[in-house]
């Protein structure tokens, strides 16, 4: 099984520890993932801003980079959703179709392809899970509150399997954090307010470690946590699942 690691552009530059944890966790599960150095980005920032046409060269570059692998794994549901859904704008050659189908979110890859639903490890903390919209409603990684009151999802199960962990019950389980790509800048005031409300829900319900499967939402929430100097640490879920030590 030839597995490529796709590290989203902002994770590569600002959160290398998330990429390292992804690589190490896969290794622990018996997968040697390769990081093709020529990779850049999935093109989502442009396309979501209306400039899909300007994103096409990025899409092609993505396909060229990853077409030789059986799976492309990324610690970001949002980028994966973009590749799956919006690469329909490319001519649907065999390579494009293969890459679209082979691109997986890390959590989905672990649970669906590797069939791992429990992980060893101990994490005695009160952990708040932020469900990211593209992963949840786009890739159907977790139940939507619009459809059912049952809170479930692959990432929730993986985290719950850790010894000593306590997952926060939020007032609003799956509300958007307000990041939204360029929305966070073009609608700064609403974006910030949404993020503040999201953090407040976690704070009110006792979260000390805020986590999720998508670093972009977490980057935004972390920005608020740090600005307000709140007693909360923000970690990508893979850092927890890989057994990172929390001080």
């Amino acid at each position, binding site marked *: 099984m030839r597995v490529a690691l796709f590290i989203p552009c902002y*994770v*590569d*530059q*600002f*959160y*290398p520890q998330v990429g*390292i944890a992804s690589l190490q966790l896969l290794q622990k599960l018996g997968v040697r993932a390769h*990081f093709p*150095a020529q*990779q*850049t*980005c999935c*093109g989502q*920032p*442009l396309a*979501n*801003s*209306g*400039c*899909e*046409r*300007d994103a096409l*060269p*990025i899409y092609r570059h993505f396909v060229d980079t990853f077409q030789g692998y059986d799976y492309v794994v990324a610690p970001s549901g949002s980028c994966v959703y973009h590749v799956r859904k919006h690469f329909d704008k490319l001519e649907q050659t065999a390579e494009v179709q293969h890459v679209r189908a082979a691109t997986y979110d890390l959590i989905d890859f672990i649970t669906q392809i590797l069939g791992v639903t429990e992980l060893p490890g101990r994490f005695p903390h009160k952990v708040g899970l932020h469900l990211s*919209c*593209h992963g949840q*409603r786009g890739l159907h990684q977790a139940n*939507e*509150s*619009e*459809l*059912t*009151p049952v809170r479930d999802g692959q990432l929730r199960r993986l985290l719950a399997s850790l010894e000593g962990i306590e997952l926060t019950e939020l007032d*609003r389980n799956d*509300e*958007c954090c307000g*990041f*939204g*790509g360029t*929305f*966070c*800048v*073009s*609608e*700064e*005031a*609403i*974006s*910030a*307010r*949404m*993020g*503040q*409300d999201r953090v407040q829900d976690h704070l009110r319900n006792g979260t000390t470690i805020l986590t999720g499967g998508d670093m972009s939402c977490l*980057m935004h929430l*972390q*920005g*608020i946590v*740090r*600005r307000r100097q709140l007693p909360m640490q923000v970690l990508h879920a893979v850092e927890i699942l890989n057994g990172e030590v929390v001080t």
Partner: protein
Amino acid sequence: MSHSLRAATFVADADRTTWHDETLWFVRQKRDKAVYAVPEFQELRELASQIKEHTLGRLDEYLKQFEAEARRNGVHVHWAADAAEHNDIILDIIRRHNDTRVVKSKSMLTEECHLNPHLLGHGIEVIDTDLGERIIQLREEAPSHLVLPAIHLKKEDVGATFHQHLGTEKGNHDPQQLTEAARQHLRAKFLAAEVAISGVNFAVAETGGVVICTNEGNADLGVNLARVHIASMGIEKLIPRLSDLGVFTRLLARSATGQPVTTYTSHYTKPADGRELHVVIVDNGRTQQLGRPDFRASLKCIRCGACMNTCPVYRRSGGHSYDFTVPGPIGAILSPNIDLKKHSSLPFASTLCGSCTDVCPVKIDIHTQLYKWRQVLAEAGEIPIAKKWSLRFMGRFLASPKAFGLGGKLARTGLRLLPHQLTHAQALNPWAVARELPEPPKQSFREWYARAVKQ
């Protein structure tokens, strides 16, 4: 003015924003409970979506059938291509009856056509009889929500408005007393009116009848007291058969307010003896939207407002920030059809979280259409120039691994070395107004990996 500027004004009042958000979230939760209690709710959504899809596919046939049946019932049927025609037709009917006092029940179509100012301009008093609608009419404001038109106002605001216009006691904002004052005030208007105007929730092609859903019964009171009833409907309100109606009435109130059904679901099929029933069928841009394959599904909308209640952006920015008759996510996909330039910022007033699509009782792919409008807007040059060029530059940069690696390193180094005051200057960096930037690491993942692999 863009959505973001109007939204920033609304959200600046933090307490009011909290109240607005929590009130609408409460409605969303009521909706959830009602939905969870109906096991076949998702099948109902699918069925409703298919009925609408079918109807939109042969709208011409169903409209003709509706017209023929309605005429057979003794209903006067009028066709209006646009808002101006709609308003003229209604003015003409009122004038023929020498009436100057008209009562109207809530109708978003008459709002869309700006009927009230048109009638007022011709010396006709037109009174909105829905409580929320009457409140905003007194304040000369537009509705801020499809179902809850005055949801942007607190009871204190209503108390002040009623004190000013209806002579209630100053400082009295007891909801029960205010409602009673409105009731007394409206009763006189109901009794005096010769003509009653209503909207239409559903029009049944098979019977030629129209169905009106309200919780206050105000439409029925107006219509049954007046000699002339004018029902104003958009062409997309049609459903084929009376037996299809139950699918929609089961979805409408549950999605809107969490009620099993609206308090009043009234059928108007033929005029009573000595009375008149007019139906005005309005296009006003709808066939144009029908001709846009990516956006035609927006015409399935049954105006329940569920997408607004669930939308995290709407809840915090208020309906007026959309500056369109239909606000919120659904408005953001209907409005560019009417005026691409004026409403160019609305499809961007979303994080594309998809909650709107998940609550929509007729399964409109709202967030996908928002995404598609963004592409249309950018292609038409309706996004800010600076944004367009910076994105184009970003495109070149992100398609080249070398430029990306080098650019990223420069940005990280700059961020690390430059003073915090500069990197977080609020005038230059909107991110930094309320958030810290991420702390730049010394090495990127790719730099780490290159070394790790060598070892």
